[in-house]
């Protein structure tokens, strides 16, 4: 699939999000820009606290009260070709936008389903809130989706959440998420805390759904291997910024940012033989008073005086591959043999 030729569905322009804390403003996301094309899957990778979940909550405007989008635009193109800024929508329009245009599937499947009502009642409630009153039609569509996610449709439709296993609940959420045929689906760690074989089922089901329905997705994961398998485009986030974004093979085989390379060198592979891995020294920075220059410089083995002084801009070095690193040529030189000679 040649992604860039598809029209853009969602375009983030210079989005910054902060939280109010006792000590001051926490800059959780700063100046994030990217385009999401139709049928594209974008994976956001990065460690806990790097801002990937905050960014997605910002897109559907579900930030907690202390959080706010300070700047930027989130432009969404409807199926009719109309472009709107999500940040300018009224609360009422927003309710229509969520789920019907952009659905979010959260991490903990058990907590996302109401334990005291049957799955079918949740389905009807959701449909009704979005103006779909044709119960038989909704039911048929739901059963069809349950079949697509390899669930026993009748049984699951009439079940309470506690009657379903964790993997089944996660698949119910996937099916429910796409019930209203959204153009964009945000998946927040959809396979965290599930077992390997269950994870495989969920990934396969997700691929089937994506293929059948043609939605675009933003995939949040701390697990690089899932990004490697599912994504067309991968974005590395560090301390609230996108430090590198590009096609999946570019990012995995020819990383240009020291942090991306560091992450890749920290993950064991099953298929390789004995492996030399390395971790990144230090820990992520304080987001209230981030270090000057490149935020990664205190942990970066390639940092120079310039990195400590000046924040590197996100530059398109190869078509479709943008990176914010002054030493990207050095990183690239090291990335040829990541398994043999770790630099970090």
């Amino acid at each position, binding site marked *: *699939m040649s992604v860039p030729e598809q029209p853009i569905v969602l375009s983030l322009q210079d989005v910054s999000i902060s939280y109010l804390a006792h000590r001051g403003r926490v800059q959780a996301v700063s100046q994030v820009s990217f385009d999401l094309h139709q049928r594209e899957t974008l994976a956001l990778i990065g*460690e*806990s606290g790097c801002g990937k979940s905050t960014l997605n909550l910002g897109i559907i405007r579900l930030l907690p009260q202390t959080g706010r989008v300070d700047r930027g635009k989130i432009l969404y193109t409807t199926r009719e070709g109309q472009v709107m800024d999500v940040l300018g929508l009224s609360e009422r329009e927003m309710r229509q936008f969520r789920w019907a245009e952009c659905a979010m599937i959260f991490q903990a499947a058990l907590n996302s389903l109401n334990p005291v009502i049957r799955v079918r009642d949740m389905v009807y409630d959701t449909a009704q809130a979005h103006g779909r009153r044709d119960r038989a039609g909704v039911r048929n569509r739901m059963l069809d989706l349950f079949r697509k996610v*390899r669930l026993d449709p009748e049984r699951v439709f009439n079940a309470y959440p506690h009657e379903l*296993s964790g*993997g*089944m609940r996660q698949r119910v959420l996937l099916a429910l998420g796409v019930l209203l045929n959204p153009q964009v689906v945000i998946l927040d760690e959809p396979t965290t805390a599930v*077992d*390997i*074989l*269950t*994870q*495989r*089922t969920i*990934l*396969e089901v997700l*691929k089937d759904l994506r293929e059948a329905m043609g939605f675009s997705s933003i995939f949040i994961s*701390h*697990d*690089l*291997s*899932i990004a*490697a*398998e599912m994504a*067309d485009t991968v974005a590395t986030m560090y301390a609230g910024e996108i430090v590198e974004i590009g*096609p*999946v*093979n570019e990012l*995995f*085989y020819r990383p240009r940012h020291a942090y991306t390379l*560091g*992450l*890749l060198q*920290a*993950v*064991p*592979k*099953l*298929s390789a*033989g*004995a*492996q030399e*891995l*390395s*971790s*990144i*020294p230090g*820990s992520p920075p304080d987001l209230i008073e981030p270090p000057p220059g490149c935020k990664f410089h205190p942990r970066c083995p390639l940092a120079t005086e310039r990195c400590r002084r000046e924040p590197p801009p996100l530059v398109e070095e190869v078509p479709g591959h943008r990176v914010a690193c002054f030493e990207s040529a050095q990183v690239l030189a090291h990335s040829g043999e990541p398994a043999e000679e770790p630099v970090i």
Partner: protein
Amino acid sequence: MPDNPSGQPLIELKGVYRSFRQGRLRIPVLQDINLAVGENEIVCLVGESGCGKTTTGRIMVNLLEPSAGEVLFRGHPHSVLRGKERAEYRRALQIIHQDPFASLNPAHTVGQILSYPLKRHRMTKGRGGLRRRIWELLTLVDLTPPGDIVNKYPHQLSGGQRQRVSIARALTVEPKLIVADEAVSMVDVSIRVSLLKMLHSLRDRLGVAIVFITHDLALAKYFAWEGRIAVMYLGRLVEIGPTPEVIANPGHPYTRALISAIPEADPEVTRNKERMILRSEDIPSLTQVPPGCAFHPRCPFFVPGLCDAAVPPLEHASGFVQDVACFPLVQGLGLREHVAVKEPAVGP
């Protein structure tokens, strides 16, 4: 302390069963576990949640008693050890828990946390000795300079640092075996490797054996490359052997399924991997473990009348270095013909 006659494993589980009661039900969590861990050895227990790997680890360090079967410490049943010998046995076995946020008392400083076991087991002499030992331990786990750490409370430390404190605490009593129960799964990827490397160097320097419990097969492979991997499914060991063999040439269909299901941090590899299709997606409940081989309802190589008739023992299969509990494999019926391989996914 009983001497260690040569050849005796450090700890050995013999025919261990364990069940837990839930209301009127008895849930068999472990069935017939036979597993020996040698001095200075690395063994990884892998399997999905509920397979009994944590219970096995807890029985090893005597936090749980087996319902049936024996636990031998250097050849002596642990139940006959008394007094001083028993104290030494307890000291020799330590566990590191998964959650570094829950396993350290938030009201105590790092120094206090480390001093309690040292005092309780009279491991040091006087205040100076205690202080020196705490300094030494913190240095050992790379929490340096120790003076900066010793007066901190757990909430002032990062997840990785807390896990290092947990490890230092386990080391206070100079153990012979450390059971690390998912010890790095809550730590960020970028610092995980440094913790694993530290555990490795502790093993080399202090001669401890490590039982590493994880659900992450790739991590197990990396950590136990020179040791063994034991795969568990629904309370039983289904495969055990040297790590490179189990990973490169898995025998049991369950191990094969796991290896084929794992996504890899390499786009081409992970998208072109052969995937094994199971007959059922759902893991059976421990209250209704299927008869015979517990994996048979999901196994694509299922032979009716054989796999569902009796429980396959863990034994040698020709063509494999490791032991495997699978009748069709051991009897040489071959698993190849039945292999169901999915079309590789189309790349980008």
